[in-house]
């Protein structure tokens, strides 16, 4: 019990320290918009990538990065649309994806009435923030204005906005226990949240209900959702939680790495190796030039430890 509390405490402290450092640094960060396809843009700044969908109905955002960046993010959005921000969808609860919730919500408005009147506290004031129920549960310390105003349970919520159907899909126990994948069906773009990244090993937040197998299941689900134009390219495009705009081939490479490392650590566990012995065996060393790091919020050792603990029989 003591070890479990210590592990979870370390992750919480690491997230807090990382967030604090990012908040202080990101006033100087530039915000960039990249057209993806259809109605969808990728917004790059600090923290997790954002998705911006614009059209005649207004603006929909996926995630909000850090609060300090909100003025720059708003200015960038206004280069695309002067319409109201209607929806914000949080892919999970981490502060690098929800830090700007309160600011960007205040900048928007909701069409209230009908059964939406009771969906949010102050009717039409502010955009609606949609997230899985577990996101709300994981944000006890967040200011009230930053909390989701519309949560869903189960594994799917549907919206129709700006002329296209939008699926909000909940894979269970992946990066956290409150993840959402957002699929813009007409634009053919998927916002993956931190289930998929191009510049880091999978971040598995065990303390928040994440798991390696859940991550792999979610990656397999993404593979099933994508239709490339030819080979592994084009067609459905992916906005990853962190890193560059991607497509099917990038996702396959990331899934391949994740499964191979899972298999290696599983094999070492079967051989009776301790966590320290597994770390010493360096099961990630061929992928470290691409995804590994010994510094920062999510080190290679932390990834190996998370996979080891996720695969180890529960005592």
């Amino acid at each position: 019990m003591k070890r479990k509390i210590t592990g979870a405490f370390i992750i919480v402290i690491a997230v807090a320290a990382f967030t604090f450092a990012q908040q202080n640094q990101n006033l100087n960060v530039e915000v960039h918009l990249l057209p993806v396809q259809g109605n969808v843009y990728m917004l790059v700044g600090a923290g997790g990538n954002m998705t911006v969908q614009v059209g005649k109905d207004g603006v929909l955002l996926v995630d909000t990065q850090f609060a300090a960046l909100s003025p720059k993010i708003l200015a960038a959005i206004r280069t695309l649309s002067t319409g109201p921000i209607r929806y914000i969808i949080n892919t999970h609860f981490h502060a690098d994806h929800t830090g700007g919730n309160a600011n960007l919500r205040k900048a928007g408005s909701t069409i209230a009435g009908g059964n939406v009147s009771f969906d949010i506290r102050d009717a039409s004031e502010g955009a609606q923030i949609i997230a899985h129920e577990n996101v709300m549960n994981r944000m006890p310390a967040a200011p009230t204005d930053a909390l989701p105003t519309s949560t869903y349970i189960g594994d799917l919520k549907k919206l129709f906005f700006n002329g296209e159907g939008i699926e909000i899909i909940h894979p269970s126990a992946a990066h956290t226990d409150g993840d959402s994948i957002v699929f813009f069906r007409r634009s053919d773009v998927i916002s993956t949240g931190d289930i998929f990244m191009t510049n880091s090993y999978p971040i598995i937040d065990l303390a928040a209900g994440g798991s390696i197998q859940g991550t792999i299941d979610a990656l397999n689900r993404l593979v099933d959702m994508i239709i490339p134009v030819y080979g592994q390219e084009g067609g459905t495009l992916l906005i990853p939680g962190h890193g560059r705009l991607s497509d099917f081939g990038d996702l396959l490479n990331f899934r391949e790495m994740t499964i191979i490392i899972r298999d290696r650590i599983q094999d070492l566990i079967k051989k009776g190796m301790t966590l320290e012995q597994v770390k010493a065996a360096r099961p990630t060393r061929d992928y470290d030039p691409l995804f590994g790091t010994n510094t920062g919020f999510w080190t290679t050792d932390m990834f190996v430890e998370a996979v080891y603990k996720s695969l180890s029989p529960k005592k």
Partner: protein
Amino acid sequence: MRYALLLAILLMCAPAFAQANLDGVWENLTILHEDWPDRLFGPELGDYTGIPLNDAARLRADAWDASLITLPEYQCRVHPSDYVPSFAAIRIWEERDKDSQQLIAIHTHHFAWGTERTIWMDGRPHPPEYALHTAMGFSTGKWDGDILTVNTTHLKEGWIRRNGVPRSDRATVTEHFIRHDRHLTLMTVITDPAYLTEPMVRSRDYVYQENQQIGAYPCEPVDEVIREKGTIPHHLPGTNPFLDEFANAHKLSKEAARGGAETLYPEYEQKLSGKK
């Protein structure tokens, strides 16, 4: 007056003379003396000779299982632009502005998987790092005299050799297209900070084909093997039984077959001799 007019015309045409015209179909199947292992049937397992790869790349190649390409989602994966010219014929054509006749781009079509790439010649910048990476990458070119030099970024992860030796998505590629009458030499320099310890240099030759066309190359994935969902064929570290086959079959030193920058240079032969 006539000479002045002729001189003026010649001066106006001078850039065109300095630049070669690469248009046409170029075939390499008639000159099979180079890169043979990379063509058609593919290289042998465990053959890393001639590649300045690092330990991480070596381990990835050791873990690679050829069954990977039986997975439907891998069957139609195209050769990246730095590898596909090894395979077979290419067609090259120019795109020019109709009015000014300024060169906008040079395009290439490759027989293998029917891929096409654009080499931008209009001075446009490369996209930001967070833009999409593709198998063909983003290429810009310029003429150095009659040599076309091309720089490519934004490559998706590919392979140096299709027996599992990886080339990362961080690699950049410089190419030189050099025409000698009916022959074309393509020199490729791959710089990969993730998996190579020094640039990987290749050259390939092509012969101009006046009457050749390039055939279609459709690819349709099919279920070849019934597997549990999400299975990725690979060898766990230290368990690949095929790695020594290449060295044994060709009576090479096993160490030399493992490749690496040191093995590329003549001094290495002396080192091996000294060991004997």
